């Protein structure tokens, strides 16, 4: 078990390094840097001025070295210009001698956002908090309803209940967030139907969450996920229901409800656990769409802003968080599966 964990962690670390390097590489390609130089030093500067700006700000060095500096494994650059020492780790107006040698993601230095004019670490933390609330409610709605649908459908395979619930879950997997969101807003928040039960934006939910402003975004994400989890639960439930011990329980006279609740359910929930954990990366996708659609300024919204405005540091920060979230959930799902299913032994 320990070697398994260790190997997984090492692979994870390697994956994270590779992925962040890819993002770093793509955001630091020369046209992007040129754009940064033009937005910082004036849009009408010549090519030579762009080159000298990049040189002065430490961009004109090999990609790998700069990646090392950004991640915090290589010492930050320093530049001595007529006695004035500037450098990556030296904030303007501080003593160069007191500045640390390394400053990167590992040391907690995430850079400065050019769009929001604030440190990236702070932005990411607050936005992530907002998205965390959204995710929590999505999970709270999605998981129980999906498990319930899957359980009811898989309980008696082929019955009318199974058929109709399965069709519902297929329909829900065919409804991506931008479709369900648009339909929900048109039905419940527009002047077309005149219902106006809920609000079409979730901007006010950033201060106080009410049923009125938060129900639609939560439902929009949940609908797309419910179908998939429900189908997995149904398959696993249907398989368990054909097992020998279920037949034995039925034959010795246990009521059907008891069989489902006490014998089948626990064993049927092992497979969906993995699926639910692996839903997190998908939720990330949904979060970006829904936060854009409902104007809820969370992590997904920030990512879109960073990417749309060529805010390199913020985009890098966001991608680090996204990659870590994906990898950690993968790890939890693997480890949790081993814990839940005693039949699996990792050698």
């Amino acid at each position, binding site marked *: 078990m320990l070697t398994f964990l260790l190997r997984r962690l090492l*692979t994870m670390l390697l994956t994270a390094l590779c992925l962040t390097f890819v993002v770093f590489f793509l955001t630091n390609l020369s046209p992007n840097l040129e754009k940064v130089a033009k937005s910082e030093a004036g849009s009408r500067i010549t090519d030579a001025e762009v080159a000298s700006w990049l040189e002065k700000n430490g961009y004109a060095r090999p990609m790998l070295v700069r990646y090392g500096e950004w991640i915090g494994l290589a010492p930050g650059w320093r530049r001595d210009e007529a006695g004035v020492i500037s450098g990556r780790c030296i904030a303007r107006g501080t003593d160069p001698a007191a500045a640390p040698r390394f400053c990167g993601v590992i040391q907690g230095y995430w850079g400065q956002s050019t769009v929001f004019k604030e440190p990236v670490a702070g932005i990411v933390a607050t936005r992530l908090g907002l998205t965390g609330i959204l995710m929590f409610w999505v999970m709270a709605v999605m998981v129980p309803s999906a498990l319930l649908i899957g359980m009811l459908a898989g309980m008696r395979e082929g019955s009318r209940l199974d058929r109709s619930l399965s069709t519902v879950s297929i329909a829900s997997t065919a409804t991506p967030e931008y*479709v369900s969101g648009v339909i929900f807003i048109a039905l419940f928040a527009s*002047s077309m139907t005149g219902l106006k039960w809920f609000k079409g934006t979730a901007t006010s939910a950033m201060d106080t969450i009410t049923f009125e402003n938060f129900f639609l975004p939560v439902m929009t994400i949940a609908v797309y996920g419910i179908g998939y989890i429900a189908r997995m639960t149904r398959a696993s439930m249907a398989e368990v229901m054909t097992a020998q011990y279920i037949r034995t329980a039925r034959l010795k006279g246990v009521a059907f409800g008891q069989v489902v609740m006490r014998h089948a359910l626990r064993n049927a929930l092992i497979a969906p656990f993995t699926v639910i954990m692996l839903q997190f990366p998908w939720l990330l*996708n949904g979060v970006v769409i829904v936060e854009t659609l409902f104007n809820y300024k969370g992590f997904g919204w920030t990512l879109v802003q960073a990417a749309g405005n060529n805010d390199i540091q913020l985009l890098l920060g966001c991608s680090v968080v*996204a990659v870590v979230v994906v990898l950690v959930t993968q790890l939890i799902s693997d480890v949790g599966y081993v814990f839940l299913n005693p039949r699996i032994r990792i050698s």
Partner: protein
Amino acid sequence: MQDLGWGAITLSVLKQFLPVWLALALTFAASIRYRRRLGLYGKLFDSAIGMTGFALVMLWVFTALFADLIATHDVLSQISQMKNKLPGTMQPDGAGWYLLGGDHLGRDVFSRMIAGSRVVIQIAPMATLFAFMVGITLGLPAGYFGGRLDTALSFLANLVLAFPVILLFYLLVTPEIVETGLPQYMAVVLFLFPLIFLTVLLNARYYVMPARRNLILALVIVIGGWAYLALVSDPGTRVALLPAALDPLRVPGNILIVFVSVVFVNAPTVFRIVRGLTLDIKTRDYVAAAQTRGERPWYIMLWEILPNARGPLIVDFCLRIGYTTILLGTLGFFGLGLSPESPDWGSTINAGRKLLTIAPHPAIVPALALMSLVLGLNLLADGLREESLRD
């Protein structure tokens, strides 16, 4: 003449779809008549779910085919008085109606939705096919040989899979990155796989008949290679491999980029599926028999293992076209890749969502269209799975 009511709108829309209804009726009549001779396809018509799914999918395929007959207006022509007008509003000159209303620029929502189906039907199945070629060409040897090759390829696949899709799109499909030619280089690599796949497939089959094999392979490489070069190269960009005179396939640059990014996102999942199936099938007796006969590895992979993995692959193919459609919509929704004027469903939803609370119809119409197509593909996959499990 006056504005139409909901009943009249429904009737007119149904009337516009007349060629589609005819084609659907013909397809269904012929298929049901000869279903016993049509194998898995014929069996589809035994299940209500499969039939519903097939009907929905074919509805959109025929719509894309007959788009010019169905559409009532030009996709880009704007009538300023028709901005955000409700469905069934008459044109100011009295020449016709906007059946499903006008959008924020005064264009006909109905015609744009019809034209949008063409974009999806052109890109989604093709992109999925390419993703399958990549996934199969890499997944078969990874599963069959195992070892270092498997470790390396699986690591790469997991790398792409761990990448949040939207972030990837934002990084790949921005003008700055396009300027560096990166998506085109990716196209150079990814589009090579169908060619490799076909060559290896035919080489393995006709290896014992050298004369025939040489002829077939020469044909494939010349025609396929030319198509490959024509597809990849675009005069005036970084990858201009072919002179313009020999380049009849002018794929608009942004469509190529969208295509490449969708293939890139889908291929690793296909790889994982194919690898898993190969690991399972390679322990079967007929593979052992082929090995004992002395067949070469690629023959066993392509002509023994692959045909026996076709069931799950066909089902996944249907599901994946649906997923690709959703991805295309996502790209359009964020205004990435395709031009903002493009009538594809994602871009139209994106344009319509800003006025959603006042005039929802410009966004609702393409949203429902996209949903029905994906639903059709999912139902079709479900029907196919049920029917292929039955025997």
